């Protein structure tokens, strides 16, 4: 056995080449996060003390449920509008299609701060929307739109709709047109074709998109911070406030652990479901 063969058979070269990146992820990501989570279980007050005190606080449980609610609503709205838009994009003629894809990629490449800031100009007390409503005589005094849950959701949908559109366009393009044509030529109404053929085939893509949007909006910081302020505190802003303003490291670590567990659970559960119900996989 030559030396080269030996190396190849053991995959040692492969390990060596991936070692720097592997060690970087383990050393700077897994261990620090593991240490933060482990730290919450060695509290002098008892094993689950930080979690008991978290869930005993009415304010903090409200924040957790508010975050889940905002993420769920954002996901549902993004799914509905993202799906319709992606369908139109996937059926658009070549040139227009690439233009539409570029138009969806561009906001994604623009920073979250810039995109949240845009809504600050629109929804502010003296913002464009209020000015327009006043000029049209729809309201007699400016509406308080900022720092509401609605403002945060609008900002989040704005953030994540492009992601949903892009993850669905590919899926919809891959659904053979023959299948849809077969359905309608066999007498199914367009609505029946949609519910019984198109939608089931798109489910794996919808799940991927939903996971991306849900976890993204569940952990977003800049948008709820700028558009929701303290009145709409979410887990991410609470984590930052606990760590950097109150220097309550145990509290911050507890929030970090809760966020990590929820995110990972959702990703694993949904990818498991997506694999099981994929109708294209036989």
């Amino acid at each position, binding site marked *: 056995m030559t030396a080269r063969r030996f190396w*190849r058979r053991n*995959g040692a070269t*492969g390990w060596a080449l*991936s070692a*720097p*990146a592997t060690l*970087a*992820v383990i050393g*700077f*990501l897994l261990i*620090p*996060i593991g*240490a*933060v989570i482990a730290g919450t279980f060695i509290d002098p007050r008892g094993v689950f003390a930080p979690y008991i005190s978290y869930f005993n606080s009415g304010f903090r449980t409200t924040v957790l449920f508010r975050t889940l609610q905002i993420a769920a609503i954002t996901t549902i709205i993004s799914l509905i*509008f*993202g799906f*319709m*838009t992606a*369908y*139109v994009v996937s059926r658009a003629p070549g040139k227009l299609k*690439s233009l*539409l894809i*570029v*138009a969806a*990629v*561009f*906001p994604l*490449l*623009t*920073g*979250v*701060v*810039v995109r949240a*800031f*845009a*809504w600050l*100009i*629109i929804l502010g007390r*003296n913002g464009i929307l209020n000015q327009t409503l006043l000029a049209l005589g729809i309201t007699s005094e400016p509406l308080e739109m900022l720092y509401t849950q609605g403002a945060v959701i609008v900002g989040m949908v704005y953030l994540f*709709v492009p992601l949903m*559109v892009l993850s669905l366009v590919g899926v919809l393009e891959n659904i053979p*047109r023959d299948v849809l044509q077969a359905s*309608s030529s066999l007498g199914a109404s*367009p609505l029946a074709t949609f519910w019984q053929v*198109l939608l089931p085939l798109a489910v794996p893509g919808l799940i991927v998109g939903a996971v991306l949007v849900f*976890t993204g909006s569940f*952990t977003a*910081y*800049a948008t709820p911070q*700028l558009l929701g302020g303290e009145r709409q505190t979410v887990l*991410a802003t609470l984590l*930052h406030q606990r*760590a950097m303003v109150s220097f309550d*490291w145990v509290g*911050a670590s507890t929030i*970090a652990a809760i*966020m990590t567990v929820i*995110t*990972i659970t959702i*990703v694993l559960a949904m990818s498991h479901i997506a694999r099981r119900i994929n109708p294209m996989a036989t």
Partner: protein
Amino acid sequence: MPDRPHPILIGVAALVYLFLMLPLVIVVGAALSDTTYLTFPPQGLSLRWFENIFEISAFRRTIVTSLQIALMGTLIALLIGIPAAYALNRFRIELPKWLGTLFVLPILVPEIVFGFALLKSFTVGTGAPIFLSLLIGHTLIVLPYVVRVISASLASFDFSIEEAAISLGSAPAKTFFTIVLPNVRAGVIAAFILAFITSLNDVSVSLFLTGPGISTLPIQILAHVEQFFDPTVASVSVLLMFLTVAVMAVVERTLGLTFLAK
């Protein structure tokens, strides 16, 4: 189902695109306004808020830091990510499956948790300088993009070409640089751009890793918005958007833009 979508669907899609584009148009308009407050449509055109960016030293400093971190972080990520992506494809059978998942972890775990953990366990724990922590944080959050984009390029690379070169006597390292790398050039460029823009726009990791004198541009923008509500932020935003457009134009020239949608 007819091939042409229903007019109502087309109408909804048009509204969604209007919803996506209008806020960005408004930011550009507000940046060009001659007023001291944020308004749209702009009243009087002026570039003075762009000059103002460079008059505020915090913006000058953070723009430099952001560009430094984005460039260095991306290069390091490429340096460790390209060999990893190569190994994942070349030694697919020999290496365990979880290794591929490991490189996706930095975008799987909440970024804000990662930023906090890095601060608590690494920066505070070891007393490492803020700049180094910031660089490590950014390197890790762009690593998944590098590994995935380059892996995707390598997946369509025929490794028998490499074997042919090696069996004809070319040294493995030389073969990598002269045969493999040129074939995945497009992937490397795309990875660079994606990583650079991701790092430049990052908020959640940088949020914790700023200290006296060191901060990044997005964090500085956040701080500025909370204190002053003037068009400076709009003009910085436009500057960032222009940078994005420039980068996208380069991609369009070299690879075609649909590449980014993958």
